[in-house]
C-alpha cells in the first residue's frame, strides 16, 4: 500500500474543496522530500507500523512456544533471537517514536499555532536517519538475528555471543540520533514558535508532556549512543572496559545502559499521558482538574526519571547503600504519576461523559496504567525486588505500562485526531468493539504473568517447570484476543480512508487550535496566525449543551 494512493481521487465536489496538505501534490517525491511536519508524521506512522508487525510476529511465536513446558516449537537459540527482536523493535522502532514522531510531529505545530516545526529540513532528516537505523536492524535480523536481549548485557553481548550484535547496536545507535533530532526540534518549536497570546499556562497538556519527553530524549539518548559505541569497540577490538578478565566491569555497562533506559521508559509513557490529558477533558466536556499540577508533574517525571536507574540493578552486585538511594528515589518518582491519575479521575466529576472510542481507550489507559504503576512499587521496594527481579512479574509490569498504557494512548490519540489527519471519520461502532477486545485481551494475556512472577518463573525462559503451564496457556489465549484487538483498527482505518464519513473541522467540538483548521488542514495550517485569548480546555461556551442534558 504505497503512500501515493493514500489521497483518494475525490469525487467531483459540488464546491471546490480547499487545497489541503494531502491534495497539494501526489507525486512520490512530494512525500519523500517533504518538509511538511504533517506528511513527516504520516511517513513515521507507516514506518513504525511496519516494525510493529514484525515485532508482533516475534511475540506471537514466543507465546506459542511457551504453550508447553518443553517448548519445542523453536530451538532455544531462535527463541532468544525472537525475544531480542521483539524487545529491540518494539522499544526503539515502535514505542519511542510512536506518539512523539507520529502524533507529535502532526499536532504540535498546529496546537501552538505555528506553520511548521522550527527546523523542517532537520525533521525530514530525522525520518531518514530512523529508516537508516531500521535498515541496520533489519540487516542484523535477516542475517541471523541477535540473541542478547534488548539490554545487550556484557560480557555476554561483547565476548560470548556469536550473533550480529554490532549490526544491531549500529541500528539502535543511528535510530537514537533520529530521536535526539526530534526532541531538539520540539524543544525549540515549543519555546520559540508559539502563537501570540499562547503563554505557557495556555498550552494544552499534550504540549507539556511532549516538551518533557523531548527534554528526556535530548539528555538521555546520547549516553545510549556512546554506550553502544563502547560495546561495539569492546566486541570488535576487545578494549576490556566491560570485560572483567581485562580489568573492566560488566556492572559499568549496566550503569551506562540503565542511565539511558530508565528515562527511555518515561520517553515512552509521558506522551501517552499527554494524549489522555487531551482526550478526557474533551469527552467529559469539562476543564481538566488541576491543570498546573498535571503540567508540572510531567516536568517532574522528566527530571526525577534520571535519578532512579539503579532499581534495575538491586541484585547485580551493586552496593547495598546505592540500592537504598535508588529505591528511595524510585518511590519519589512514582508520586507525579499518581498525581496525574488522581487528576484525570477528578476531571470526570460533574462532566458530561460520552463513550466514544478515544474515551474508551482513555479509560483503558487509566485502568491498566494504574495497575502498571502500582506493580512498579513492588519492584522499587528492595525487599520485594530480590524475589521478583528478572521474573515474569517484571515482564507483566512493563507490559502493563507500555502496552496497557502507551499503546492504548497511541490508539486513543490516533482515533481522536484521525478526522483531523485524514478528514474522514473511522466507523464508531467498530472502534468501540476494537477497544473492548484490546482491553479484555490485554488483561487476559498479562495478568497471569503477575502470578508467574510471584511463583518465581524467570524471564527469557523457553522451557520451564510444568507447574507454570496453566498460566502460560491462559496468557497465550489472551494474546490471540489481543492480536485481534490490534488487527481491527488497521482494517477499519484503511477502510475509512476511502469511504469513511467526511469529518468536519471539529467533529468532537474540542477546544484547541488544531481543531480550528479545516480537516485535513492546509499545507501552512493557519491562513492567519491565530491569537490565543482563552485558557485551554475551556468548555464553557459549550455550557448550554452540557447543562440542558440534551
Amino acid at each position, binding site marked *: 500500500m504505497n503512500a501515493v494512493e493514500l489521497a483518494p481521487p475525490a469525487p467531483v465536489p459540488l464546491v471546490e474543496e480547499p487545497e489541503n496538505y494531502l491534495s497539494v501534490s501526489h507525486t512520490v517525491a512530494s512525500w519523500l522530500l517533504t518538509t511538511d511536519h504533517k506528511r513527516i508524521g504520516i511517513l513515521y506512522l507507516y514506518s513504525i507500523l511496519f516494525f510493529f508487525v514484525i515485532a508482533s510476529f516475534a511475540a506471537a511465536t514466543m507465546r506459542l512456544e511457551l504453550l508447553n513446558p518443553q517448548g519445542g516449537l523453536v530451538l532455544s537459540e531462535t527463541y532468544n533471537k525472537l525475544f531480542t527482536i521483539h524487545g529491540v523493535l518494539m522499544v526503539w522502532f515502535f514505542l519511542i517514536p510512536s506518539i512523539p514522531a507520529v502524533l507529535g510531529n502532526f499536532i504540535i505545530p498546529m496546537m501552538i499555532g505555528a506553520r511548521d516545526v522550527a527546523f523542517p529540513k532537520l525533521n525530514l532528516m530525522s525520518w531518514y536517519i530512523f529508516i537508516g537505523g531500521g535498515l541496520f536492524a533489519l540487516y542484523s535480523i535477516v542475517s541471523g538475528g541477535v540473541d542478547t536481549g534488548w539490554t545487550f548485557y556484557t560480557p555476554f553481548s561483547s565476548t560470548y555471543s556469536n550473533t550480529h550484535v554490532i549490526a544491531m547496536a549500529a541500528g539502535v545507535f543511528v535510530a537514537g540520533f533520529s530521536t535526539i533530532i526530534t526532541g531538539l526540534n520540539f524543544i525549540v518549536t515549543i519555546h520559540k514558535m508559539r502563537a501570540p497570546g499562547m503563554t505557557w499556562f495556555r498550552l494544552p497538556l499534550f504540549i507539556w508532556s511532549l516538551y518533557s519527553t523531548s527534554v528526556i530524549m535530548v539528555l538521555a539518548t546520547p549516553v545510549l549512543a556512546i554506550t553502544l559505541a563502547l560495546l561495539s569497540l569492546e566486541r570488535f577490538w576487545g578494549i576490556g572496559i566491560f570485560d572483567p578478565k581485562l580489568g573492566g566491569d560488566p556492572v559499568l555497562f549496566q550503569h551506562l545502559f540503565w542511565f539511558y533506559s530508565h528515562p527511555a521508559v518515561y520517553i515512552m509513557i509521558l506522551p501517552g499521558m499527554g494524549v489522555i490529558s487531551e482526550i478526557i477533558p474533551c469527552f467529559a466536556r469539562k476543564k481538566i482538574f488541576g491543570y498546573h499540577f498535571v503540567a508540572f508533574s510531567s516536568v517532574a517525571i522528566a527530571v526525577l526519571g*534520571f*535519578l532512579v536507574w*539503579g532499581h534495575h*540493578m538491586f541484585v547485580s552486585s551493586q552496593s*547495598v*547503600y*546505592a540500592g537504598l*538511594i535508588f529505591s528511595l528515589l524510585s518511590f519519589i518518582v512514582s508520586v507525579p504519576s499518581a498525581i496525574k491519575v488522581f487528576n484525570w479521575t477528578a476531571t470526570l466529576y460533574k462532566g458530561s461523559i460520552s463513550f466514544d472510542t478515544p474515551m474508551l481507550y482513555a479509560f483503558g489507559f487509566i485502568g491498566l496504567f494504574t495497575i502498571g504503576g502500582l506493580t512498579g512499587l513492588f519492584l522499587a521496594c528492595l525487599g520485594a525486588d530480590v524475589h521478583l527481579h528478572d521474573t515474569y512479574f517484571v515482564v507483566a509490569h512493563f507490559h502493563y505500562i507500555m502496552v496497557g498504557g502507551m499503546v492504548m494512548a497511541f490508539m486513543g490519540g490516533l482515533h481522536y485526531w484521525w478526522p483531523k489527519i485524514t478528514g474522514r471519520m473511522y466507523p464508531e461502532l467498530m472502534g468501540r468493539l476494537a477497544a473492548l477486545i484490546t482491553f479484555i485481551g490485554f488483561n487476559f494475556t498479562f495478568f497471569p504473568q503477575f502470578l508467574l512472577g510471584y511463583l518465581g518463573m524467570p524471564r527469557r525462559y523457553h522451557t520451564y517447570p510444568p507447574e507454570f503451564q496453566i498460566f502460560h496457556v491462559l496468557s497465550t489465549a489472551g494474546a490471540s484476543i489481543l492480536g485481534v484487538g490490534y488487527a481491527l483498527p488497521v482494517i477499519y482505518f484503511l477502510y475509512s480512508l476511502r469511504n469513511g464519513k467526511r469529518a468536519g473541522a471539529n467533529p468532537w467540538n474540542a477546544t484547541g487550535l488544531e481543531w480550528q483548521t479545516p480537516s485535513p488542514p492546509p499545507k501552512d495550517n493557519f491562513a492567519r496566525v491565530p491569537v490565543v485569548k482563552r485558557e485551554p480546555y475551556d468548555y464553557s461556551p459549550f455550557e448550554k449543551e452540557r447543562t440542558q442534558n440534551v
Partner: protein
Amino acid sequence: MILPTRFYIKVCAALFALLALTWGLAYVDLGSLNLGIAMGISIAKAVLIMLFFMHVRDSGRLVQLVACAGFFWLLILLGLAMSDYQSRGWVPTRRPDLSQSHPASKGEVPRGL
C-alpha cells in the same frame, strides 16, 4: 551587545594564564589535591569561554539554563554511579568481624583519585 576586540584578547590572555597554571601545578606533588585543582582550573576556563566567547552572559535565561543542563546531567551520571562503586565495601557482606578493621576491601585503594 558587541564586546570590544581588546576585551576578547584579555579573555584569551586569562585562558593562557590558566593553562600555564595547570601546567605548572602538574609538576608539584599535591597528592589527591592535584586532580581537584586541575578540575577547578578547567572549570574556570570553560566558564570563561562560555560566558564571553559563547555570549552566554548576555543571552536569555533560557540559553543559560540549557548551557548548564548538560553539565548538571553529566554530574548526575557520574555522581550516582560512583556512589555505587564508592560504597561497595561499606556493608560487611563478608564476615562482619573481617571488615571492621578496614573499610575498603576491594582492588587497589583509591589513593590519588
